[in-house]
């Protein structure tokens, strides 16, 4: 390591005027004991209650107490001992400050930016699907997963990227592990991104299909964003808050207007099939990717972030007010038998891949090694931003899980099982869920749809509609006013809004990646200002996710049922690459004794993803194994038979093709990750033998900044800041 500062034996530098002693004060001990006891009580209630009414707030408290303890103790241990954050070192934001990408940013503001970048629809959707196994497995995995895996990954990747001037994940893998691993990681990142974009788009399609209200309000977000873009460019440059305020008001009007449109003659024209929505999304994605960002992407991003934060705050408040009771069982039979209709497979490993975002999401590693590390003011702040930001996302996932578990569970299964299973009508769906032992009747299902003014809620898979039903119910209970239909479409709108933002941004990032990679062999293509190159690269990226989306939408077996596992596994395979990288780095830095911090979540993640990949590829059970499924339909087709839910020969061919393709993609991802891991093992062996290896860490430069480390400045930190300002005489910022 090229550190010029000597470290004290804890490996940590105390922040200026930071906590003086390592011993906790009596008050601290009492407070943290109380938090621990409260958390333990909440967990006990969740674990032991069977067949009684359990308030959803127990889940909330169990999670919040666990987060608090993890942040206070484990995250601090990782930051100070394992990573050795050193506030005497200048961060890249300070050293390379250019006011564009390298920019010293207030920690609370950067926390907001980072959270807005990592949290999207993922933490809202995964937990909803995983609720088919009951509330307990999902709750445990979200909380334990985030504390020991997800937040650790985000924190360590952010730290190591920050120490390397904000290098990207792919770049770090290439430089620190090797060229082979680097190439495999690059392909994996690109391919995984395509799958993620396709599945996100699939969720929007499923939420909007046959819903004129939804289509109308989502379609209006485009002119609203364009208006905001023009407002900010031409009318009143830079007045972002003003423009966003106008945008939010217009958005609410668009939701209200959707209700009128649904009643009017326009309803038929806006009732779009899934195929038409795919086409609309693909065209939209392409146009958004080649238009200048100020016109569509940036203003939409402002809107989506404001809505996102607003809804999350509202949801947390309304849970406290409404105090709903859990309708789901703690653990359902599907968890034990693996025969659930929402997604196939048993609790292990499938709960752990269905809930990726909120527990462990590899995609975050791309953000933690992207814009965020270039904006951190002080090294110690990575704990707040990396670990704290991920805890916040986990909280969102917990809220989504609660929303799915407080609705009638017959309705839950009628909404989330593919049309092939429910038959698509209230009568057949009621018979289907009664088969699981629910007493939900056809009238109940029809009434639920009528309450939110949707033509039907049967087989509205993908998680978004279920979450919207849950949210509308909770908001309605909390705030009254009989506005369930409004809240439902409000929730659909906000989910679709930020999924579309993720699709826009993802397409653009994918396009840059492609241009950058192909630019290595064809110089001209890598030139970002060359218009034909932009158009071609955008078309390729949109074409790729668009095809997967189309395949998912038309899949007779149900796109979500078929593609969501691929999405979850892909996301966590990306996490495996990220955790491999940080484990290698810890060992190269001579910190073998701390390698377990990232090594254990890595081992767990590899076991989960490889087991799931193995089952998806090699399982003999057609519901689980992609190739077994293809074989079953191929055999039937060759024998001239039709297998439900396929309705004709064409659909039989489709199942064979889709399942084979999914199986191939699944194998490809797993093999790419194994290549990275094998390459890493070679490097680890060398590093262990020599007690460490040189890395590409930037040399230390003394920092001239004094900033607090945590969310709230301590008295000592305020004093240190005041002293520093007196010495240097610089102002700015508010504390």
């Amino acid at each position, binding site marked *: 390591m090229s550190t010029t500062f000597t470290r004290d034996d804890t490996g940590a530098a105390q922040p200026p005027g930071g906590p003086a002693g390592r011993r906790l004060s009596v008050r601290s001990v009492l407070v943290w004991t109380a938090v621990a006891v409260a958390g333990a009580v909440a967990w006990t209630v969740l674990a032991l209650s069977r067949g009684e009414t359990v308030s959803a707030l127990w889940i909330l408290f169990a999670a919040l107490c666990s987060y608090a303890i993890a942040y206070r103790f484990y995250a601090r241990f990782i930051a100070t001992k394992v990573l050795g954050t050193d506030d005497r070192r200048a961060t890249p934001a300070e050293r390379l400050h250019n006011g564009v*990408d390298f920019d010293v940013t207030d920690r609370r503001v950067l926390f907001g930016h980072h959270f807005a970048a990592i949290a999207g629809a993922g933490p809202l959707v995964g937990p909803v699907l995983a609720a088919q196994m009951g509330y307990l497995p999902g709750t445990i995995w979200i909380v334990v997963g985030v504390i020991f895996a997800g937040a650790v990954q985000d924190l360590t990747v952010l730290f190591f990227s920050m120490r390397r001037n904000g290098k990207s994940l792919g770049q770090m893998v290439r430089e620190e592990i090797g060229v082979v691993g680097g190439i495999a990681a690059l392909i994996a990142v690109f391919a995984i991104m395509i799958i993620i974009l396709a599945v996100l788009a699939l969720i929007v399609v499923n939420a909007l299909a046959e819903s004129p209200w939804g289509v109308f309000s989502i379609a209006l977000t485009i002119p609203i964003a364009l208006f905001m873009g023009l407002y900010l460019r031409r009318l009143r440059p830079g007045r972002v808050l003003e423009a966003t305020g106008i945008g939010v008001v217009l958005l609410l009007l668009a939701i209200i207007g959707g209700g009128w449109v649904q009643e009017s003659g326009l309803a038929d024209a806006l009732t779009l099939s899934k195929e038409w929505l795919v086409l609309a999304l693909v065209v939209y994605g392409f146009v958004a990717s080649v238009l*200048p960002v100020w016109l569509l992407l940036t203003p939409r991003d402002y809107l989506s972030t404001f809505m996102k934060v607003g809804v999350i705050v509202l949801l947390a408040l309304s849970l406290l007010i409404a105090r709903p009771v859990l309708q789901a069982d703690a653990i359902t039979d599907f968890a034990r038998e693996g025969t659930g209709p929402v997604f196939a497979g048993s609790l292990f490993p499938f709960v752990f891949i269905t809930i990726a975002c909120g527990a462990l999401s590899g995609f975050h590693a791309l953000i933690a090694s992207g814009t965020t590390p270039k904006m951190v003011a002080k090294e110690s702040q990575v704990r707040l931003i990396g670990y704290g930001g991920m805890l916040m996302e986990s909280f969102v996932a917990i809220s989504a899980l609660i929303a799915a578990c407080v609705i009638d569970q017959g309705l839950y299964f009628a909404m989330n099982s593919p049309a092939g299973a429910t038959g698509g009508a209230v009568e057949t769906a009621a018979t289907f869920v009664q088969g699981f032992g629910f007493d939900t009747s056809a009238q109940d299902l029809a009434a639920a749809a009528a309450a939110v003014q949707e033509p039907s809620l049967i087989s509205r898979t993908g998680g978004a509609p279920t979450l919207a039903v849950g949210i509308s119910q909770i908001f309605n209970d909390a705030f009254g006013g009989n506005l369930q239909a409004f809240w439902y479409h409000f929730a659909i709108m906000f989910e679709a809004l930020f999924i579309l933002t993720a699709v826009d941004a993802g397409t653009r990032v994918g396009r840059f990646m492609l241009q950058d990679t192909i630019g290595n062999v064809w110089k001209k293509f890598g030139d970002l200002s060359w218009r034909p190159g932009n158009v071609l690269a955008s078309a390729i990226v949109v074409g790729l996710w668009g095809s997967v989306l189309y395949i998912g939408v038309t899949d007779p077996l149900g796109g979500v049922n078929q593609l969501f596992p691929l999405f979850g596994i892909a996301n966590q395979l990306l996490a495996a690459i990220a955790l491999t990288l940080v484990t290698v780095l810890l060992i190269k830095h001579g910190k073998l004794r701390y390698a377990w911090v990232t090594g254990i979540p890595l081992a767990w993640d590899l076991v989960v993803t490889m087991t799931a990949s193995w089952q998806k590829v090699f399982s003999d059970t057609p519901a689980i194994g992609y190739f077994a499924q293809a074989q079953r339909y191929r055999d039937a087709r060759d024998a001239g038979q039709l297998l439900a839910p396929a309705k004709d020969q064409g659909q039989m061919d489709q199942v064979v093709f889709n399942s084979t393709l999914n199986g191939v993609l699944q194998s490809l991802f797993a093999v790419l990750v194994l290549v990275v891991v094998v390459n890493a093992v070679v490097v680890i062996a060398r590093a262990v033998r020599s007690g460490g290896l040189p890395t590409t860490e930037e040399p230390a430069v003394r920092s001239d900044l004094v900033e607090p480390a945590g969310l709230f400045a301590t008295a000592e930190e305020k004093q240190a800041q005041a002293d520093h300002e007196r010495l240097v005489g610089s102002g700015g910022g508010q504390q």
Partner: protein
Amino acid sequence: MTAGDVRAAVVRAGRGVRWYLREWSGEARWDDHLRECAAHGHAPLSRREFERRRSDALERNPVSRCC
């Protein structure tokens, strides 16, 4: 606590929220520019030109949005 204290606390909280939103949305970058120019004795850009440069920089530095 007097009514004056409450009012002061509300004003302070309001200012904090406004500060946060302006920082978060990037509106405050313009104030930074004015301050920097004043400190170095440069003539500042026009607001229009300044914002145009900022948004053009975004064009080359795409921000990823996760799932």
